[in-house]
């Protein structure tokens, strides 16, 4: 929306130009790491250089040929998918409860559900780690799935709450009088109306798990290490462009997922009208 000044006035034109410059600068700042990491992954030098002196696909082949990278990639998917599914179930239930209860507890409850999004992951990790150890789950697949679900739930909670905000409660009442019980009402009416929100929340939860380092450092073991964890490990002794290549691949996948999520968001807001 444009500022409410006279469109032709000098002040308005200066204001608009300043705004444009500001937006470009912010975007540039955000994109700069990407503009460096991607070219670095094609560098013909055996260490991280920028700008690269020559171009090669070699580091991508390196990633493909090293079983450790492939295992880590598979681990990331194997962790991310159940994390997304669990987050969808718990996040959606929480959003439904908060939207429909009308109880005075729903505000503090929402804050509690959202807390993992605000808290530094290192704090969650420090809290989770002793618990996981005392449960005898240290280094297990279940441990990291639990950890990432904790940080995945808020994403689903936020997107589904937004979808439910435009959802008239009389729609459920109508379905009930027409003969649908609670479960059928959810499947036949609520779900078709809110699935874009649910799905984009699930994608965000997956992307979060796929990118997450801090919890992975605490909770993964040798058999469950994820891509971000390997990158971290490699950074400390071998600064080869393989890292940049792996990072670029993660970047591509994450961008793709976020793209889908935002398309779903657009679909949702169009429907909401």
């Amino acid at each position, binding site marked *: 929306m444009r500022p409410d000044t006279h469109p032709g006035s000098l002040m308005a034109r200066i204001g608009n130009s300043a705004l444009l410059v500001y937006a470009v600068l912010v975007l540039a700042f955000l994109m700069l790491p990407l503009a460096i990491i991607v070219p670095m992954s094609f560098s013909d030098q055996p260490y991280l250089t920028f700008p690269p002196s020559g171009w090669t696909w070699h580091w991508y082949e390196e990633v493909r040929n090293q079983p450790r990278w492939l295992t880590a990639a598979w681990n990331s998917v194997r962790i991310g998918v159940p994390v997304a599914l669990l987050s969808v179930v718990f996040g959606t239930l929480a959003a439904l409860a908060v939207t429909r209860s009308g109880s005075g507890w729903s505000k503090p409850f929402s804050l509690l559900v959202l807390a993992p999004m605000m808290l530094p992951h290192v704090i969650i990790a420090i809290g989770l780690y002793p618990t996981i150890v005392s449960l005898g789950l240290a280094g297990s697949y279940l441990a990291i799935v639990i950890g990432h679900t904790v940080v995945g739930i808020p994403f689903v909670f936020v997107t589904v709450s937004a979808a439910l905000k435009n959802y008239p409660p009389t729609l459920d*009442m109508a379905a009930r*009088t*027409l003969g*649908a019980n609670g479960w059928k009402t959810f499947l036949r009416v609520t779900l078709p109306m809110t699935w874009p929100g649910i799905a984009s929340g699930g994608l965000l939860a997956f992307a979060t798990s796929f990118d997450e380092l801090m919890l992975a450092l605490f909770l993964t073991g040798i058999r469950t290490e994820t891509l971000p964890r390997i990158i971290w490990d490699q950074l400390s002794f071998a600064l080869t462009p393989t890292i940049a290549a792996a990072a670029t691949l993660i970047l591509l996948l994450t961008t793709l997922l976020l793209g889908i999520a935002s398309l779903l968001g657009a679909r949702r807001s169009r429907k909401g*009208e």
Partner: protein
Amino acid sequence: MTAAKLGSKLTFENVAKRYGAFTALEPVNLVIEAGEFFALLGPSGSGKSTLLGMAAGFVPPSQGRILVEGKDISRVPPERRNIGMVFQNYSLFPFLNVFRNVAFPLEMRRVPKNEIAERVNRMLSMVRLSHLADRLPSQLSGGQQQRVALARAAVYDPSVLLMDEPLGALDKNLREEMQDEIKQFHAKIGATIIYVTHDQHEAAAMADRTAVLNQGMVMQCGPQSQLYEAPANAFVAGFLGEANILRVAEVATEGYAARVKSVEGIELTAARRTANGASLVACIRPENVVVSKTPLQNANLFEGTVVNVVHAGGNIRYRVQVNGSCCFIARTPTRREHEKHQQGERVFVGFDPEDTLLIPE
């Protein structure tokens, strides 16, 4: 249900609703006859929607029972009550087309596919929307959407059809058109209809009987003419049409009449009425008040000044100040040869004792 598609009798038996210390609805007893068009009329917060929600099954009563044809349904969940409901915001499923919306309740009842098609089509032609069966609700006008909602709520022959201010979102002209539409629809399907509204004209235009609610209590229940001519109390008198209402300070019975003195010091003669206990008001309808330049024969006659004249529709509405604190409103049909009064004019206002009702406050 293949035989005569008559609706069922619905009984509210001593039902009340309390939320903690707050009483949303005092104990109510109402019997709505099979096939009757029954209106629940009242301002917002009067308890009419609570009553409707109880019939639908969304509001569990704190006490009492709700019966359909003598069978207690108070504990039956909404989806098994076989009651239809039409909402103010239509509440059509936006992702289903018109046909699928109307088919929804039949699908829930596992009606065979070909029978669904037949019944939906019959219903759509009844509300004259057959040509729009493939449209999505968002592609329809408000009136059309409400007709789809009507078809959807009636296609499964519900025992009772509940309507919660169904025309509230429509503009005035369309509203009157839809009133006729709903009346005709009622005549065709013969359902029992409970219609919630805050618009007395809507209730008057459509309902066989009306229950007037205020502050969680049923004030009066009966046909519109009775509510208007013999209001049970000052609230009903004021809510249905206009009324001159004077709070009574003293009453003395004189044979068939009663001498009354209002708190403003106005003395008048009313038809005798033995309302015991409660404090009384005198109620005179504006159309029973006559305004004239010359003194009239009426037993209740006052001299005053015209302070306001409004020409509305076929009526002229005068407001006449008779003493420091008391005004009478008079309404007379416009006729060219009748004398007209101007603002500031000295006039007489008169009305008969039999048009002066003594009713509880």
